C-alpha cells in the first residue's frame, strides 16, 4: 500500500469497524434468537396469544432488539429487554382482544417425566408431582395481569419495570406479585 494512501486507510479502518459492529449486532441477535426464541414463544403463549401469532411476535421481538442495538439503546440485560418487549406485545394483544384471555395448554399439565425427582419413594414422588401440577394449574388460572407479573419476575424484571409494562403503580405490581404467590401457595396446600 502506498504511503500516500494513509489518509483513506484510516477512513477505511473506520468503515471496516462500522461494518464489523453491524456484523457483531447480527451475530449477537442471531445467537440470542437461537437460545431464547423458544422461551419467548412459550412466554407469549402463556399470556394468551395463539401459537401462530406468538411465533410471529417472537420474531418481531428479536428484530426490535436488533434495531435497539443498532441505535445504541442502553440495555441493562438483553434477556430482560426481550421479555419486557414481549410482555408489551402481550398487553397490546389483550387490549386489542376484547374477550377473555385463555391460556391453552396441550393437556392437563403434568410434571415432565424426563426430569429426575429427588423424592425418596414413589408415593412421595406422586405427592410432589400432584403439588407441582396444582401450582401449574394455579398459574394458568391466575388473572392474566397477575400471571404476567409472576412470569416477568421470574425473568428478573424489577417491580417498577413490570409496573411500567402494565401501566400500573409499582405498589400495585408488588401487591399482584405477592397475592399471586399467596394464591399459588394456597393451591399447593389444598
Amino acid at each position, binding site marked *: 500500500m502506498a504511503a500516500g494512501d494513509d489518509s*483513506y486507510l484510516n477512513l477505511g479502518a473506520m*468503515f471496516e469497524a*462500522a461494518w464489523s459492529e453491524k456484523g457483531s449486532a447480527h451475530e449477537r441477535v442471531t445467537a440470542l434468537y437461537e437460545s431464547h426464541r423458544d422461551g419467548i414463544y412459550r412466554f407469549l*403463549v402463556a399470556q394468551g396469544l395463539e401459537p401462530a401469532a406468538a*411465533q410471529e411476535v417472537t420474531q418481531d421481538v428479536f428484530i426490535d432488539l*436488533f434495531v435497539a442495538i443498532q441505535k445504541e439503546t442502553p440495555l441493562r440485560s438483553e434477556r430482560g429487554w426481550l421479555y419486557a418487549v414481549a410482555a408489551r406485545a402481550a398487553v397490546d394483544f389483550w387490549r386489542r382482544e376484547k374477550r377473555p384471555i385463555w391460556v*391453552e395448554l396441550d393437556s392437563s*399439565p403434568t410434571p415432565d417425566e424426563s426430569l429426575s425427582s429427588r423424592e425418596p419413594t414413589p408415593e412421595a414422588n406422586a405427592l410432589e408431582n400432584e403439588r407441582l401440577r396444582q401450582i401449574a394449574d394455579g*398459574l394458568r388460572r391466575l388473572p392474566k395481569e397477575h400471571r404476567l407479573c409472576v412470569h416477568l419476575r421470574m425473568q428478573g424484571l424489577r417491580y417498577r419495570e413490570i409496573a411500567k409494562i402494565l401501566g400500573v403503580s409499582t405498589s400495585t405490581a408488588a401487591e399482584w406479585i405477592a397475592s399471586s404467590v399467596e394464591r399459588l401457595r394456597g393451591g399447593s396446600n*389444598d
Partner: protein
Amino acid sequence: MTDHLTREQLLRFLDGELSRSSTARVADHLQSCWACRSSLDQLEGDIANILKAQIQVFAPSIPDPPNPWPRLEPRLAAAQSRPPYWKRAASSMRFVLRPSFAFATTALVAILIFSLVVLPVQPVSAKEVLRHVEVAEAQRSIVTPQQVIRQRVQIRKLLKHSSVELSANVDSWKSGHITYWDSGKDSVGAELQHLYKSFGISSSLPLSNSVLQSWIHLAGSEPKAYRERDGAIDVQVNSDPQGSVPGLQRVTFHVQPSNWHVDSMNLSFADADFEISELDFSVVNKREVPPAVLAILEPPAHPVEPRLAALVPSAPPVNASIYRPVLPNLDDVEVGVRYDLHRIGADLGESIEVSQHTPDAVIVNAWGISSERKAQLASLLDGKPDVRLEFQPPDINSSVAAQPARSVVIPQPPLPQQQPDRRLEQYFGSRDTEENYTRAVLDTSTTLLSHLYALRALAQRWPSNNDPRLSDSSRAELAAMVQDHAREVASQVDELKAELVPLMSGFGYQLKSDAPSGAFASWQDVGVASLGAGKQIDFTLRSLLTTSTSPTSVDAAMPRLQQQLTELDILAKKLLRASAQK
C-alpha cells in the same frame, strides 16, 4: 418492632424491592423474630416450588410452535438501518480517493445529486396553496336559503404504541353559522369534536378551510407545502413544542390541485394520529335534512325543549359562529369507564361509584381507598372526555346516600372464634387446621360474590344484550367484562367445590348430579340467580364455620350445602355459556 411482617413485606425484602431504611428495619426484625424468619423460609420455599412448577409442568405443557422456526437473517437484513452519516462518509471517501474509481465515483455522485434534486417532492408556495383552498371552499359552500351543506367524513384514530385503530363515519351539516355533527354512537367522532371544542375550533365542518386555518394557528409555525409525485399537494405544519396544543407534533393537509379541495387531514399527536378524510360533500335541500337536525340548525325563536335550550344561545352574535356540541352518549362513556375500572380490578367491591350526571358527564366517585389507588384512578381517568373523578365520601344526609349503595363492599371473612359443632373439630383434627380451612373457603366465597355483585351491577345498568343506547364498541366492552366475570365465577365455583366436596363427603354427603335451576335466557338472568345462590351458600358456610349470629349444626348445614353447591355449579356453567352468547 412488635408487629409481624406481612407476606408482601417479606417478598419485597427477598426481591430487594424495599428502601434501604426499610430493608435495615426488616433485617433487624428478622434477627429477633423466629416466626417471621420461619415465614421467610416458607416464602422462599413457595417461590422455589412455583419456579419448579413453571419449569417442570407449566412451560412443557405449552404446545410447541406450529411451524419450524424460520431463519432470522433475512429479516435482520431488511431491518438493517443505514450506518450513521460519518460512517457512510468515511466509506465513500475510501472509494473516492482511489484514482481507479474516480470516474465511477463522480458518476455516482452525479446520480446522487440528480436523485436528490429532481426525484423528491417539490416545494411549492404554502401561501399560494392556502389562498386557492380558501377560494375553492368559498365557491363550493354557496347555498340558497333553502339549502344546507352536508359533509360526511371518516375519522380514524391510530394509537401509536399499540397498533390499535378506531374509526367512525361522521355526518355534519352546516347552515349559516350553525354546524351540527352527528357522531352517532362511535366515540372517535365525539372525541375529535371534543378536541376541536377544547381548542376553540368550533362552528366548522370537520374538514374545512376554517379548520385548516385554526390548526395552522394552533401549531404556531409556518406551513410548508410540497407537491407529491402524483401531483397532489401536502401542506405541513410542525407544531411548536411550546405551542398551545400539548402533545401536538404535526398537522398535515392533503390538497387536490385539480379543484383545490382539502380531501384529508392528519393531526399527529405524541400518542395517536387522527386522520380525517372527506367521503362526501354536498349541498342539499332542507327537505332532505332529518327534522331533528334541522331543528338544531334552525332553532325556534324560543326554545321548546329544555335539553336543546342549553345548547342554543338566545342571541347569537351576528358574525360569530355558534358551536353546538352533540351531547355525549353517557351510556357509552359509562361502559368505557367501567371497562377501565374492570381492567384494574376496581369493580370488585371497592367503594367506587359510577353514575351518570346528565346531560354531559359520568362521575366516578371513590372514597375510603388508599392514596396509591387514588393516584391510579386519576392516571386512568384524568383527561377522559366527559368523565369526572371525585373523592367524596357520600353525604349521609343526601337522598342519594339514603338509597342502597350501588357499589357493594364485600365483607371480609371473620375469623372463627368458637366452635359451633364439635364434630367439625374432630373432622379437622385441630383448631388451626379448621381455622385455615375456614379462611380459605370463605375467601373463595368472598371472591365469588365480588364477581357476582359486579355482574349484577352490569345487569342492572344494561338489562338487555342489544341495548340500543350502546354503540358496537361499548357492547363489545360490556361483553368482555361479562365474560371475564363469568369465567372467574366458574373458576371460583370449581375452587369452592374442591374445598367443600371433601368436607361434605366426610359427613356422608355427595354433590348431586343435577338439581333444578330454572330456565334462563340471558347472562343478566343467570347472573342474578347465581348471586342468589352464592349468597345462600356464603350464609350457610358462615353459619357453620364461624361465630355467626345464626349458627347451624353439621346435620342442618350439610344437606343445604349439597343442594346449594349443586345448584351454584349448574348456574356457573350456564352463566359461562350465556356470557358467550352474542
